[in-house]
């Protein structure tokens, strides 16, 4: 059962504590939420590749262990690549945190009922996959704790925020994948000095 927790204020409040964290957003609403909270080069927006936000965040976390990496995604996206939780647990990156915005629906495609509206519990699956630090948030007064959970402790860790099914105003970031990737990569590595990628 979902109460009135709304995605945009939740994401904005959590990201207020991000520091220099790198953020990878899943396609659709998590990407719009990330952009709406404030555009930064350290944001990786995705418009496709459903199921790949978490593997992408994992590869990034392994490559830059000194930076906190946050993956923000939705229930439908993470369910498509649910096995990735086992991959994350086995790699055990201490700098990786995952925030699942769970509205129990395929919000982008007509608000069809999702699997987590039934008996499926993503935090429990994460724990079973071997991610021992999990948290489920259902109310606005837990959001400060959520930010601490995501940014202030050793990973890997996963939080599920049970959010209301809402229709937010469009907040569409850059769409060109090469532009998004280049800006993000240069934010981490600086401008390229050679032709070697």
């Amino acid at each position: 059962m979902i109460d009135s927790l709304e995605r945009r204020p939740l994401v904005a409040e959590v990201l207020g504590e991000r520091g220099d964290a790198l953020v990878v957003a899943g396609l659709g609403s998590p990407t719009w939420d990330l952009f709406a909270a404030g555009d930064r080069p350290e944001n990786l927006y995705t418009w496709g590749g459903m199921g790949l936000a978490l593997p992408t965040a994992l590869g990034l976390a392994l490559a830059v262990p000194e930076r906190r990496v946050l993956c923000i995604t939705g229930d439908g996206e993470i369910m498509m690549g649910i096995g990735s939780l086992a991959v994350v647990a086995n790699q055990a990156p201490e700098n990786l945190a995952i925030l699942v915005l769970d509205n129990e629906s395929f919000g982008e495609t007509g608000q069809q009922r999702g699997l987590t509206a039934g008996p499926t519990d993503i935090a429990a699956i994460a724990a079973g996959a071997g991610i021992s630090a999990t948290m489920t948030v259902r109310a606005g007064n837990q959001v400060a704790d959520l930010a601490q959970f995501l940014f202030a402790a050793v990973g890997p860790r996963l939080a599920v925020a049970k959010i209301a099914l809402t229709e937010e105003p469009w907040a569409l970031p850059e769409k060109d994948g090469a532009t998004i990737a280049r800006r993000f990569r240069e934010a981490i590595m600086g401008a390229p000095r050679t032709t070697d990628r």
Partner: protein
Amino acid sequence: MTKLGPSAEIDWSNDVFREMKAREISLVATVPDGGLTRLLNMCEDDHATRVVTLTTEPEGVGVCIGAWLGGKKSLLAMQSSGVGNCINALGMPATMRAPCLMLVAMRGQWGEFNPWQVPMGGATRPALEAIGVRCFDVDAPNRIGETFAAAADLAFHGGFATAVLIGQRAIGAKGFGRDD
């Protein structure tokens, strides 16, 4: 059935590993294949190389892109059957102009014993090409290393998805005890 014996696998695995090290490819994402056993064991034994075992191959596309965004070079190693799982995922490196280097051990072609491998074996190259991956077939064990090097350089210098398809003729067909 061509049987090349273990020495051929040792040689080409050494060649590929050497080319990986020369390019600082330090992460290997994989759903394993029997034909890649020696190479994957070499990667596991090397402290400077991280092996990321996947549940399904498209995860490896994400892992490789993420690693590249963070400045690390990586490789996705899999069987040809896994290529079919990756097709939508491979739209991501195409859109991002991100390198994605793949090493594919072919099944379902030269001397295949298992008919279930044949449809995807035949579809591997056309499916990869349909999503924009540059493919390099190699059947001769002594050319696998140089082919891998060429595909790696195209990927990392040009920002392309590339795949080395190691023919079953080079790996040796699995016989399931029939002829082993």
